């Protein structure tokens, strides 16, 4: 095992997770290098969300290990997990903004919980992060007043407010029109270059996957069946991968899994 290798930021080793009789992850292996943008593709309901929720400790795997910077996290208790989570930022599929709070309160949530910064400093950081995601003069709006694309961008601003080392994107482009989806793609690339984060994105949007990925991993039946560069995946000899990336109804992937 090469999880001690300092180049590896996140290492997922033989992870199993099931819900009742539904065995979602059945021995998933994946390693993500420092500063790398990994995209996990796979059909709806194949456990992509479950995989990243295991990485950030929202779900506990039944078996297997997950290492963040060489530290095993799957067996940690809630209190220690909280410390690890400070390394993370996560963009949820529908934003998951706190709907009882204004935009600036959402973005500054982590700062207000975990730092002793003054209000004026917090305000400056909020404005800076919102600018980074391309938003201006929205600080005092409520989440309900925002469009879908704006919500996602505010959520992204909230995820990067604490300057995390790792960003997790849960279907970053789902539910957006193609232009807004591309705006989010550009933002993800921009963030990677600007703040040098390691990231895992899960998606079934292949346009987005090719655009933002350094490497792509395909999850099928609870296992990672192939990992490669976007070019490598495009030329994959695996029939399952080919069927998925071309979006064909006919092929080895059947509807029920």
């Amino acid at each position: 095992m090469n999880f001690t290798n300092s180049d590896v930021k996140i290492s997922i080793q033989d992870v199993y997770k099931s819900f009742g009789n539904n065995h979602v992850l059945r021995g998933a292996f994946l390693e993500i290098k420092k500063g790398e943008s990994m995209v996990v593709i796979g059909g709806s309901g194949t456990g992509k969300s479950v995989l990243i929720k295991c990485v950030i400790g929202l779900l506990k795997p039944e078996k297997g290990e997950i290492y963040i910077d060489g530290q095993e996290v799957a067996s940690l208790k809630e209190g220690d997990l909280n410390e690890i989570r400070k390394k993370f930022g996560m963009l949820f599929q529908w934003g998951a903004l706190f709907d009882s709070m204004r935009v600036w309160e959402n973005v500054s949530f982590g700062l207000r919980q975990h730092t002793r910064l003054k209000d004026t400093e917090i305000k400056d950081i909020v404005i800076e992060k919102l600018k980074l995601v391309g938003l201006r003069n929205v600080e005092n709006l409520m989440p309900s007043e925002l469009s879908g694309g704006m919500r996602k961008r505010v959520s992204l601003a909230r995820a990067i407010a604490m300057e995390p080392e790792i960003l997790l994107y849960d279907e970053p482009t789902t539910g957006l029109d193609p232009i807004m989806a591309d705006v989010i793609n550009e933002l993800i690339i921009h963030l990677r270059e600007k703040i040098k984060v390691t990231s895992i994105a899960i998606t079934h949007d292949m346009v987005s996957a090719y655009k933002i990925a350094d490497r792509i991993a395909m999850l099928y039946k609870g296992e990672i069946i192939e990992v490669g560069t976007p070019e490598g995946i495009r030329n994959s000899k695996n029939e399952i991968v080919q069927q998925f990336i071309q979006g064909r109804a006919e092929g080895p992937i059947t509807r029920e899994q």
Partner: protein
Amino acid sequence: MLRLLEIIGTKFLKLVEESGRVAILFLKTLLWIFRPPLNLRNILAQIEEVGINSIPVILITGAFTGMVLALQSYTGFKRFGAETFVGTVVALSITRELGPVLSGLMVSGRVGSAMAAELGTMQVTEQIDALYTLATNPIKYLIVPRFLATTIVMPILTVFADIIGIIGGYMVSVYILGSNPTIYERRTWDFLKLNDIYSGILKATVFGMIIAIVSCYQGFNTEGGASGVGRATTKAVVLSSLMILIANYFITALMF
């Protein structure tokens, strides 16, 4: 027959399991209360929501309960010439029993449902997961303030209900039924012991804890979108009301 036993058995196991989970949530909440810092701003906001905004409901409930108690016990007591004891009955019933129980039921309907719906919505829209990812424990951030607020506020609301209930009984007795105010007053205070009031307040405190924990538990365990939120809300009110009535009997039996 076997099938019937199986169904009963599964239901029973589920009930035991769920009770266990509620108890675990209760213990976790207690632990988080003693881990500083306490979020005073959230607690005060909840006290306003649970306490101050419940005052009108509690006052109306208390007043009419006292009034109807006076009417009913007057009718009964008159039959054997004991109508001067209406004041005693009103005071004892309200402080020992009806004040805390009816306040509890009203608060579970008004506040328990709101808590379950709010937390349930947060659950299904992943806002609770988002709290975890922001390295914030949702029990500490969401449940502890609600638990403390409800536990602190319920006894206070009950005292309000007691006072207004006794006043309501007095008004009906003196102004409608024509009782002698001096005798009524004396009958009220002569037999009322501090212990009666304490036992009511103790009940109210327990009811406050029940409402908060049951409703927050339902909210946190909501599944399946808008209809799930609806189910969680209903369950929160029904279960906390039932638990209040059950707990009420056992506390009374213990303190008898």
